């Protein structure tokens, strides 16, 4: 049996590990297509032959659900993430993230790297957090928006931008950046990765893999990458 | 085959407006640079579409702007030797030569030596067969172009100054071949050349052009012996064409001919006894004498009668002579006209050296 999964690209490392275990345990094949959540959602809506959708954004899962392609009762918020402020270098001093943070001062004439603040989830969360902390107006002009959160991290990593706002999961493996602070959970809507079994999924293997994601072993792989395990 | 041509076209600064009929044989278009010769030929080939025009070869209408008919070039079966050779740079000389073969109607090689080997030998391009055109010399290129056109087995050949880039020796080899195409294959040729000698030798019909118009047309013998037209061609080239019958090939390498006005000896002419050939006798090669000259190297002395005398602008005069049926022109000075008291009706002797009728001025009699 083949299980086809459309998954947000940011899940690749953990999901590949889970899939590898699943394949060797069951003999089923798992084929995973990694791309941006928006592209995947559109493809699913256009009839992509997919069994499972793992989105990095709630709104795109909503779109798929609206199109009636989610198997009833299977949608679940699987993983969570946190938003962190990273700085270039290994010896950056930690900061207290709150309304009193002089982020603009820290930046100087440097840029604050973020994902696109109106379009990409990480950017949207980051903007919301800065707004709720009252920091947005002071830094708005200094924000460099990247295509995605990885590109934002790269800007910090190469030192082009002194600071950046990225997911905790992205920051873990990069030695060239330091996490200098974590945004309070209440400064933005919860960051969740919803997953669902799609209506096209017919066989047991699909369901089995979907369940494997929430198994302890699966959770461990995701936790190792820095994801929070929900439910 | 008769070719009927009528064209009207206006370029900026040049307009073409002519109509003529080219009977079978070789029709020479003769005129100054820029007089429209290439344009006419292009129209026949279908490469140039005039504002108005009608071109028909025998029954076949090639172009009729009135009826909106225009046969595309590849359906006209017309071989064209371009003024600029236009060889295909990506093909070898051999492939260039055989290009037309791919498209020519099936059938065995027609006529005398239209085969590749024959043409290649004639044109002296055997060593070039595997070369590409880019590095050929100017004359080599032109020879390949001639071969290519002939080998496409056309029903009409257009040649735009085909021999201009060639040396005399090569010309001398190719001209008889063109004559054979004309006579044995009956292949009609529309021929552009600035060389009166070439035209005189090949042409059945001469069309004189000036500024896009036809100023004279007629059988080559008539046009070329017309004293009124002589200045157009250059006085040096004025001359008359007469027919002569080969009477005997003599031992010392001379051929004896009968012209109707007396015997004429010329250097060996390759023709059977009894055959008719055409001789072009340049006016300036003819000397006149009131008494039969003696002890003189000239072999040919004809009794003729002065028909009329055309005084030109310069110190010269063209004297038209009746030699039996034929007409001969002589170019002399006015001073001699006076000294010899030449006038219409006076019988005189025309002196002609045997060697002065150049090989290239002896042609086979056209059809």
């Amino acid at each position, binding site marked *: 049996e083949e299980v086809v999964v459309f998954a947000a690209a940011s899940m690749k490392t953990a999901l590949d590990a889970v899939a590898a275990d699943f394949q060797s345990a069951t003999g089923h094949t798992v084929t995973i297509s990694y*791309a941006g959540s928006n592209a995947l959602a559109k493809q699913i809506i256009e009839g992509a032959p997919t069994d499972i959708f793992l989105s990095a954004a709630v709104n795109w899962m909503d779109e798929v659900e609206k199109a009636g392609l989610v198997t009833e009762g299977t949608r679940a918020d699987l993983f969570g993430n946190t938003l962190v402020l990273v700085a270039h270098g290994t010896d950056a001093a930690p900061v207290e993230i709150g309304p009193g943070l002089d982020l603009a001062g820290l930046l100087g004439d440097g840029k604050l790297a973020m994902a696109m603040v109106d379009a990409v989830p990480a950017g949207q969360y980051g903007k919301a957090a800065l707004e709720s902390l009252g920091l947005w107006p002071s830094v708005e002009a200094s924000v460099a928006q990247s295509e995605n959160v990885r590109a934002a991290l790269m800007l910090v990593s190469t030192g082009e931008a002194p600071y950046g706002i990225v997911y905790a999961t992205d920051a873990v493996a990069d030695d060239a950046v330091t996490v200098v602070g974590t945004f309070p959970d209440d400064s933005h809507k919860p960051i969740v990765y919803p997953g669902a079994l799609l209506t096209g999924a017919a066989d047991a293997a699909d369901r089995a893999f979907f369940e494997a994601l929430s198994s302890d072993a699966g959770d461990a792989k995701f936790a190792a990458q820095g994801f929070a395990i929900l439910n | 085959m008769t070719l009927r041509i009528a064209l009207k076209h206006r370029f900026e600064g040049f307009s073409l407006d002519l109509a003529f009929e080219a009977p079978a044989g070789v029709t020479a278009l003769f005129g100054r640079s820029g007089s429209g010769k290439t344009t006419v030929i292009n129209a026949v080939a*279908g490469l140039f579409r005039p504002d108005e025009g009608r071109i028909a070869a025998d029954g076949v209408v090639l172009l009729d702007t009135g009826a909106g008919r225009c046969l595309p070039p590849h359906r006209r079966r017309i071989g064209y030797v371009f003024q600029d050779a236009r060889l295909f740079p990506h093909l070898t000389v051999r492939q260039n030569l055989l290009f037309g073969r791919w498209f020519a109607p099936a059938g065995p090689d027609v006529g005398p030596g239209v085969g590749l080997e024959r043409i290649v030998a004639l044109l002296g391009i055997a060593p070039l067969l595997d070369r*590409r055109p880019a590095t050929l010399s100017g004359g080599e290129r032109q020879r390949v172009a001639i071969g290519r056109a002939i080998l496409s087995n056309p029903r009409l050949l257009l040649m735009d100054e085909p021999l201009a880039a060639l040396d005399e020796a090569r010309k001398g080899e190719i001209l008889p071949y063109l004559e054979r195409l004309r006579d044995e294959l009956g292949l009609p040729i529309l021929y552009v050349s600035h060389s009166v000698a070439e035209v005189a030798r090949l042409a059945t019909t001469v069309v004189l052009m000036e500024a896009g118009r036809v100023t004279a047309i007629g059988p080559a013998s008539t046009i070329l012996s017309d004293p009124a037209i002589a200045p157009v061609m250059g006085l040096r080239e004025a001359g008359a064409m007469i027919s002569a019958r080969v009477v005997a090939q003599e031992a010392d390498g001379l051929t004896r001919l009968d012209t109707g006005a007396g015997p004429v000896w010329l250097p060996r002419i390759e023709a059977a006894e009894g055959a008719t050939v055409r001789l072009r006798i340049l006016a300036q090669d003819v000397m006149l004498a009131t008494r039969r000259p003696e002890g003189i190297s000239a072999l040919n002395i004809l009794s003729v009668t002065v028909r009329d005398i055309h005084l030109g602008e310069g110190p010269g005069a063209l004297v038209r002579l009746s030699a039996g049926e034929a007409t001969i022109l002589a170019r002399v000075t006015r001073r001699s006209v006076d000294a010899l008291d030449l006038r219409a009706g006076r019988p005189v002797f025309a002196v002609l050296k045997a060697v002065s009728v150049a090989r290239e001025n002896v042609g086979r009699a056209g059809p």
Partner: protein
Amino acid sequence: MTDWLTPDEWRAVALSLRVSFWATLVSLPFGLLVAYALARWNFWGKPLLNGVVHLPLILPPVVTGYLLLIIFGRRGAVGQVLDEWFGVVLAFRWTGAALAAGIMAFPLMVRAMRLAIEAVDPRLEQAAGTLGASRPWVFATVTLPLILPGVIAGAILAFAKAMGEFGATITFVSNIPGQTQTLPSAIYAFLQVPGGEPQAARLVAIAIAIAMAALLLSEWVARAVARRISGQ
């Protein structure tokens, strides 16, 4: 070699080659036709055709991919017809990736060929006409050989572009390993996760090596052709 590429990566390399090869090959005749039409014919709608051909260049690849998805997807107007009438499915197949790559590469191919066609001396084509060759034959025996360097240039541009094409492909046919995951998609996936850069770099090196090999080959062929024409 096998050590440092996973099976999935191998498949991505093989697929990229297949996709680029077929994208180039299949678009070649169409490219030639369109280039010839743009270079030599005058027809109503020529500017429109010219514009449409250039579209994939102008639009962000994502947009092109999205349009392809809408048109050639399973539910798309053309996609449905192709599926029902001919049984051809493009969406989420390597054929779709080839379509995307071919369309993205099309303007480059057409431009190169068009320039080559415009450089052919029409008097040579006329000469071929007087020798009895009809239009199609003139094209086959004179025009085509003369524009061969341009055709090769167009093909290699298209191939290179197809090898590098990513945005439209991933948008149209997703990124399914073994089916639609080309080299650039695989590189993209690695770049999206922490620590994926070294793997991405390896794949980039492979992409460069392949494209360079193709480029050298094409240059060599084009030079040989040009040398023949110049007669040296």
